[in-house]
C-alpha cells in the first residue's frame, strides 16, 4: 500500500480531480458512477487498466503519468470498499 501521506493525496485526487468528471461523491457525472455498488460486479483488473490507460473514445484519460500501478490498485480497492467521509 502507498504510505499514509500518499494515501491522503490519492484520496484528495480522487475527490477533486476524478470527481471533476465522476462527481465529488462519486455518484457519476460525465463519467460513470464509482460507488461500491456500481463497481461491485466489475473486474479489478479492468478497472485498474481503465485508470492507468483510460478508455479510448471516451473522455476517461490515462492516469499512468501520475499514478503507479500500486497506487491505482489501491484506488480500485478503496473504490470498491467505499471511501471515508471527506476530511478524514
Amino acid at each position, binding site marked *: 500500500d502507498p504510505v499514509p501521506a500518499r494515501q491522503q493525496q490519492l484520496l484528495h485526487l480522487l475527490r*477533486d480531480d476524478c470527481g*471533476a468528471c465522476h462527481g*465529488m*461523491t462519486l455518484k457519476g457525472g460525465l463519467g460513470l458512477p464509482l460507488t461500491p455498488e456500481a463497481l461491485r460486479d466489475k473486474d479489478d483488473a479492468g478497472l485498474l487498466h481503465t485508470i492507468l490507460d483510460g478508455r479510448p473514445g471516451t*473522455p476517461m484519460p490515462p492516469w499512468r503519468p501520475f499514478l503507479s500501478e500500486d497506487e491505482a490498485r489501491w484506488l480500485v480497492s478503496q473504490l470498491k470498499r467505499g471511501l471515508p467521509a471527506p476530511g478524514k
Partner: protein
Amino acid sequence: PATPVPPPSVLRGTGDLGLIIERATGSVQIVEHSGDSALGRVTGLGDLSHAAAVFSRDGRYAYVFGRDGGLTKIDLLTRVIVKRVIQAGNSIGGAISTDGRIVAAQNYEPGGVKLFDADTLELLSEVSTKDEATGTASKVVGLADLPGNRFAFSLFEAGAIWVMDASDPRAPKVTQYPNIGKQPYDGLGSMNGRYYIAGLYGEDGLALLDLWKPEQGVRRILNGYGRGADPLPVYKMPHLRGWAVSDGRAFFPAIGHNSVVVADTQTWKEVTQVPVAGQPVFAMVSPDGRRVWVNFAFPNNDTVQVIDVPTLAVVQTMKPCKGVLHFEFAPRGEEVWLSCRDENRVEVYDTQTFVRKTTLPADSPSGIFFTWRAARIGL
C-alpha cells in the same frame, strides 16, 4: 482617512451581488463586488460537486443547479433558501429564459431538459432525450438561452443539437439537428444569441448553428484544428462559457491540445492557435474585449494566462493559487474573481495591472456567478 463603510444591510441593490459555490460543503457564499466582500453563507444546497447558477431578471434570486439534481432558489437579499426541488439524479447546469419566467435544467441522469416556473419552481414540462431505439437518454450539455424564450442544447451521446421554443413552456416545441459531430461536451450562445456553438470531444472541430439562418442547419467549423496530432489525454473537460468573441474573432479552448483556437467570426475559419500552458478549461473574453483569460486542467490548474486580443499573444502568466476552477469578471471588467479550490479562498485581481486586490475565504470554491448575467443573452 477612508470613509467608514456603512454596515451591510438587507436593503441594498442587487446589481453587484453574486455567489461563490462551495463545492465540498454544499453551501454558497453570497458576495458583492462593489466592496469585494462576502455578505453571508447559505447552507443546505446538497451536492454542489458541480454547480452552475442563473439569476432572476431583478437580480434578487439565484437559481443554483446542483450535481444531485437539486434546483435551489436563493434570495440574495435575505440570504435564505426560498425553494428547493430535487429535479434529477445528476444535473450539470441550466439557463433562464429571455423574459426571466422559465428556468431550464439540463441533466446527465436521466438526461433531458426540464422547464420550471421561475417564481414557484413548479415543473412545467420535460423534454426527454431518450433514444427509443437504444433506450439510452443522452446527457444534455451546453444549454444556452436564446432570444424569444428559446433554448439550444446538445446531446452528448446522440451527437445532436436541439433548439427548443418555450414560448408555451408547458408545451415546448423542439427542432432537432442530428449528426452534428461526436460527443458535444458543451455549447454556448454567442454574439448575443445569434450563434450556438457546440464543442466536440470525439473529433476536432466545433458545430455551429446560425440562428438567424436556421434553414442552413448546423455547420462544422475549425475541422482538424489538431492538425492530425494525437490528442492529449483530457484530465478536465474544457467549457464553452462566457464571451468568446471579440474584435471579430472567436476564442475556443482546444480539446486535447495545449492551445486556444482563434476563428474569424465572418468566415469561421481558423485565424491561428495560441499556444498556452496546458489544456484550457475556460477561455473567456473580458468585458472590454481586450483580453482573453484562460485557466487549465489538471495538473496545470495552478496557472492562469492572459491573451492580448489585438496581438493574439500571451501577455501574462500567473500562478495565483492551486485549483483555479473558475473565474468571473465584474460587469465592466475592471476586476476578475478566481476560485482557489485547494486553498479555500477566492482571489480578486485587477485586470489592468494584474495586481491582487482582495482575498476572500471560501470553502473549496468552484463556480463564481454575478447577477449581471441576468441581463445577458446566452450565458
